[in-house]
């Protein structure tokens, strides 16, 4: 039995990737949940908004790289990120102006807005593919590892290595900053409070003189920032491909719904729940069990519960279970 090695293996293959993926999902789900809370519809274009923001950031990164600008150990994409956020903000504001505002004015049913967002999804998806193409793009640069497996083994003398990729640390740090900033904004500032008021009770908020168009404008700005950050972090950690971002829609929605649509705290909890379930169910446990069990009982197959291709099934099953037993999500979301 070798608990330390087992722990390190667990940390390396399950906990760190889980936390990283969870942070990415949480930031994505925050965007979905904000749109749902304020604008009251499920935004199917969110994945493609993420893809758009990431695409602009990638293009800006390439521009910076060709000019020889770099951040040293940090990825250059961080410098390009503000540009990506700005471009995405312009895009979603223009979309709101040209598309969504009309339906708000005629007070269309939420389901109509969902279909409208499918149209927006098509357009954004088309734009992204037109500009950058459907292929895989890698744009991470700078130091690749904070700790490599070899260094870790040398320091600790354990046989199991722990590799900490810089993108993982970056993701987690950024996620913490973003979440703190968002909650500070929602709970402490006047605009944030008016947003929460509008989300809780639209009529009452209107009566107290809150300008709905301003609330919507600020919401879209925040959503653009969240979507771009989530997309860039995911792209740095893995890689950028328009179709993958479209597919991210499912775990992101699952996170938001599991946590309770419209509830920011729930979105974060949901993101981590979904991420950890995906990682644990699709991880081959052979190594960890091999350390923990005596040699005679060590498993001879991979002990992988499900192949990684079925990770969507995991988020989906959790979603169904939560919906069947607690239809408003873990944190009591709202329903329109």
């Amino acid at each position: 039995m070798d608990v330390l090695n087992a722990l390190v293996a667990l940390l390396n293959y399950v906990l760190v990737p889980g936390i990283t993926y969870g942070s990415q999902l949480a930031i994505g789900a925050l965007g979905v949940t904000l749109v749902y809370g304020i604008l009251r519809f499920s935004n199917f274009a969110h994945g493609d908004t993420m893809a758009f923001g990431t695409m602009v950031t990638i293009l800006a990164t390439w521009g910076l790289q060709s000019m020889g600008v770099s951040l040293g150990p940090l990825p250059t994409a961080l410098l390009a990120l503000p540009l990506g956020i700005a471009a995405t903000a312009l895009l979603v504001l223009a979309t709101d102006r040209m598309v969504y505002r009309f339906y708000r004015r005629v007070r269309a049913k939420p389901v109509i807005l969902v279909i409208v967002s499918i149209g927006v999804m098509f357009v954004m998806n088309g734009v992204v593919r037109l500009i950058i193409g459907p292929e895989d793009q890698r744009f991470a640069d700078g130091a690749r590892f904070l700790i490599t497996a070899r260094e870790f083994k040398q320091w600790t003398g354990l046989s199991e290595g722990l590799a900490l990729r810089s993108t993982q640390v970056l993701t987690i740090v950024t996620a913490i900053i973003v979440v703190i900033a968002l909650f500070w904004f929602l709970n402490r500032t006047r605009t944030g409070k008016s947003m929460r008021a509008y989300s809780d009770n639209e009529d009452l908020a209107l009566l107290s003189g809150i300008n709905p168009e301003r609330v919507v404008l600020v919401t879209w700005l925040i959503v653009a920032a969240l979507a771009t950050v989530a997309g860039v972090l995911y792209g740095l950690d893995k890689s950028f491909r328009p179709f993958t971002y479209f597919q991210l829609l499912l775990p992101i929605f699952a996170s938001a719904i599991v946590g309770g649509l419209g509830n920011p705290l729930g979105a974060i909890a949901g993101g981590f729940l979904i991420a950890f379930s995906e990682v644990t169910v699709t991880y081959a446990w052979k190594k960890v069990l091999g350390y923990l069990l005596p040699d005679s009982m060590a498993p001879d197959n991979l002990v992988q519960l499900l192949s990684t291709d079925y990770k969507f099934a995991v988020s989906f099953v959790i979603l169904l279970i939560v919906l069947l037993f607690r239809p408003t999500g873990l944190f009591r979301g709202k329903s329109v």
Partner: protein
Amino acid sequence: MSETARKVALFGLVVVLIVGTGMVQSWNSALLILNMGLISAVMALGLNLQWGFAGLFNIGVMGFVALGGLATVLVAHPPVTEAWSAGGLRILAGLATGAGVIVAAALVLKRLRRHRTLAVIAVLVVGFFLFRWVFDGGVEAVEAVNPASTGFLGGLGLPVLLAWPIGGVLAAGAAWIIGKTALGLRSDYLAIATLGIAEIIVAVMKNEDWLTRGVKNVIGLPRPVPNEIDLQNTPGFVENATAIGIDPVTASTLWVKGIYGVLFAMVLILLLFLAQRALHSPWGRMMRAIRDNEVAAEAMGKDVIGRHLQIFILGSAVCGIAGAMMTTLDGQLTPGTYQPLRFTFLIWVMVIVGGSGNNFGAVLGGMLIWFAWVQVEPAGLWFLQTLTSGMAEGPLKTHLLDSAAHMRLLTMGVILLLVLRFSPRGLIPER
């Protein structure tokens, strides 16, 4: 313009577009568009049952279409006897174990009073490992059988036309399971649930090589029509072709596609007739009443959830039939090509543009949007060529020309948004 005149004019437009394709491009591509257009119209008809009649937000069309394709393989492909003897029974036993575990868990959930959650989890965990133990051995044995050409169980070797109704039944069965669990949910939850199920169905078809050969594709499925080569070797056919003045090779491809077209048109007309009868029956009026006001319908004693389940199954079955027809037309099952944008959201564009709630609208939307989907690509290429004709050769120009293929998604999105904004009831609105 009266409604009939509008219908005639719009369907006339479809005919003109397809005949025009035949004259300008080639009759071969015109028939290709016609055949896939007919299949798309069937899919749109199925979705229209769910969305137009009952207001069910199903964005899992792709899954049912894929199940129809799977049915084609299971029905028409000749059985691979070697694989069956290697591990076929073990796979069946594994599947039976899996089903047994689920039934056992359900029984425990129903019967037990105390420690219910723990007992259910225990049954599921133990059952899962039992299932994997029985099942995995069979899968390994089957997939080891001549993996380059078979490596899967094959089908029943029945006539391929049987696959169409069976595809419908398979999709209906899946829809029953999904509907039982998810139909009570709110509309956008149902949407996500169906989206997820469709992804899972396609993931299963991509990864379970023993069933569908996965991404290795099943090719050479039997066809309900004669082979082009055989036709070219039939003296009578060649004589007839030369008599009308078409070269026998072209004539044979056109003839085969024509027969497919007639078959698909027969299915479409039958389903359209049934859907029309359903719409104008008391049942159809009840459906629309439920759609327009669930609470009022329930107060009148209508079983809302039961009716929803019914129409969800019917609509999915129609999508399954369309999926089986499509795989038959292709002659192969390629699980890697099922993409939600193409097989779910495009069908939505068809229904919305055609006119949700109107069967003729759905059929029109299916044909028209399919035509647009096919023709946007050459049109986009032409557009970009004109646009870039003044540009110097360079990476930007190449990139622009390469991306013509992606104009499709953009165009479909713009069409959908414009229709929703300016004509939300579609081209042929519901009466």
